[in-house]
């Protein structure tokens, strides 16, 4: 449904997006993950025909964003980072205007607006002037304008920014419900959002692709080393020394390092050589030295770790 091939965008000499390629299948929800300033918005603006690419190409629903911009624009619903609202209009008249310029015909216009307002729970404020709405409602109107003409492709730029937790959950559920019928690209810098709503993830950082795959495959891809989490009672330095002696252990870090309280129980993250299970050896070593083993479990790499890892690795490569 969406095909991005070697896409680059330069502003002057600065590359906002550099040589990105990815695909989104029909009906899929793609999470577009990256820190602020990574190039998410620029990529989305290219996909919505707002900006032209410097090189490379992007196709939406089979149409090229540069050559067949009108066809692409007919097929997409776009929610920019700052919802494009007219503060002097009421919610109903605003959605009516958007539906009209998106090509919704006279007969279906009213029902399209009604259905959309129902969908994002705006019916109660339909005659309120947008300028008087709270941030949460404004965000919902922004989402409504992307949905009103029921486009096959939805491009949502940080749709949950500035909402309270309850609203965030509502919006996420709504977006999740859009998958299947709609192809969705959702950008965010909030990780749980992606793991909760998206089937596939593209991570970008500094304009470059830093990782791509399902949440599971990304986790697997990054498991070059296994880690364990251990909670052990005893003097930290001594415990650490013992842990480091066990065969297969690469690195040990502990939580409360340097806080002066050396005696209390500490939490240790133990990185081990991949494919080796050192849990039994570890447990034995700890007990043999007279420390109290309170907890020992394998640490799965969360998406958060992947994200941090991918983006910081990029940074260290660049700094070197």
């Amino acid at each position, binding site marked *: 449904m969406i095909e991005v091939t070697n896409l680059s965008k*330069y502003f002057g000499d600065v590359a906002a997006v550099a040589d990105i390629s990815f695909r989104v299948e029909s009906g899929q929800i793609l999470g577009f993950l990256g820190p602020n300033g990574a190039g998410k918005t620029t990529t989305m603006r290219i996909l919505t*025909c*707002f900006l*032209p*690419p410097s090189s490379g190409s992007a196709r939406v629903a089979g149409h090229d964003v540069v050559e067949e911009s009108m066809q692409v*624009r007919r097929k997409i619903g776009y929610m920019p980072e*700052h919802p494009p609202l007219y503060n002097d209009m009421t919610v109903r008249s605003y959605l009516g205007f958007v539906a009209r310029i998106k090509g919704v015909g006279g007969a279906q216009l009213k029902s399209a607006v009604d259905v959309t307002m129902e969908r994002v729970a705006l019916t109660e404020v339909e005659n309120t002037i947008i300028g008087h709405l709270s941030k949460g409602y404004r965000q919902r109107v922004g989402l409504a304008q992307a949905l009103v003409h029921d486009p096959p492709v939805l491009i949502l730029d940080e749709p949950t920014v500035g909402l309270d937790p309850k609203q965030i959950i509502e919006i996420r559920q709504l977006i999740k419900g859009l998958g299947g019928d709609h192809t969705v690209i959702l950008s965010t810098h909030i990780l749980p959002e992606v793991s909760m709503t998206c089937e596939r993830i593209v991570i970008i950082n500094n304009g470059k692709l830093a990782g791509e795959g399902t949440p599971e495959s990304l986790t697997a891809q990054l498991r070059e080393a296994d880690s364990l989490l251990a909670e052990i009672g005893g003097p930290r330095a001594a415990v650490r020394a013992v842990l480091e002696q066990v065969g297969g252990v690469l690195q040990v870090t502990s939580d409360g390092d340097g806080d002066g309280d050396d005696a209390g129980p500490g939490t240790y993250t133990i990185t081990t050589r991949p494919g080796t299970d050192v849990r039994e050896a570890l447990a034995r070593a700890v007990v043999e030295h007279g420390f109290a083993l309170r907890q020992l479990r394998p640490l799965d790499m969360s998406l958060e770790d992947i994200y941090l890892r991918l983006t910081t690795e990029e940074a260290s490569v660049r700094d070197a």
Partner: protein
Amino acid sequence: MRNMIAVYAKEMRSYFVSPVAYVIAGVFLFLSGYLFRNILMQFNQWCLIYAQRAQMMNMSGMPSLNLNELVVTEFFAVMDFIWLLVIPMLTMRLFAEEKKTGTIELLLTSPVSTVQLLLGKFLACLSLYAMIVALTLVYFGILELYGSPDWGPIFSGYLGYLLLGGAFISVGILGSALTENQIVAVLVSFGMLLLLWLIDWSASFAGPTSAKILKYLSFIEHLQDFQRGVIDTKDVVFYLSFIFFSLFVTSRVIESRRWRR
């Protein structure tokens, strides 16, 4: 067409739900009413002096003073200067505000062509202008009550006004499309309009050919025929081609974001 109407309706709505239309109409009508009153008083004075002189010189059967020449034309001449000041304020928000608030992102990612967008906005502004200008017809109704003005030149004068307004608005929209700051938009459009207004002044110091060109470009030059009751295709073509040209430049400005790779 449907897109253009949607944009047109949105712009009209926004003029009338904000105080903009009312304030501009109010200020304009107050100023033009004040000027019209003064022109009338002046005409009255001239009539008195004229009548006294005629009596003193004992000349009967002298032609009476021309109401159209001394009131109607005079009034039109001051009205266009007020519009020169007011129109940039009508047009300043048309694109600058969309850029500032980010709604331009909605418009340019919707299946609306630049021409539809531009024409919708242009026609909305022109209609508001025409409505306010039409209200000044009341003044000539007052003339009709007490005298007998010739309505031909009045109507052709209004046609000239519609064309002049279109030209002013097209320049104002260009100014608005160039920036996202409304104050900059006003100043740029005002500067361009004033330059076009005064362009024939430099004609007096230019060579014969350039003098002709400069005179041709002047806004007032082409308005005078209309106010005398002459509808000359040359003048109509001038205004229409001017409007076309500046709207064309504006559309290029808006689309330029699509070529800047």
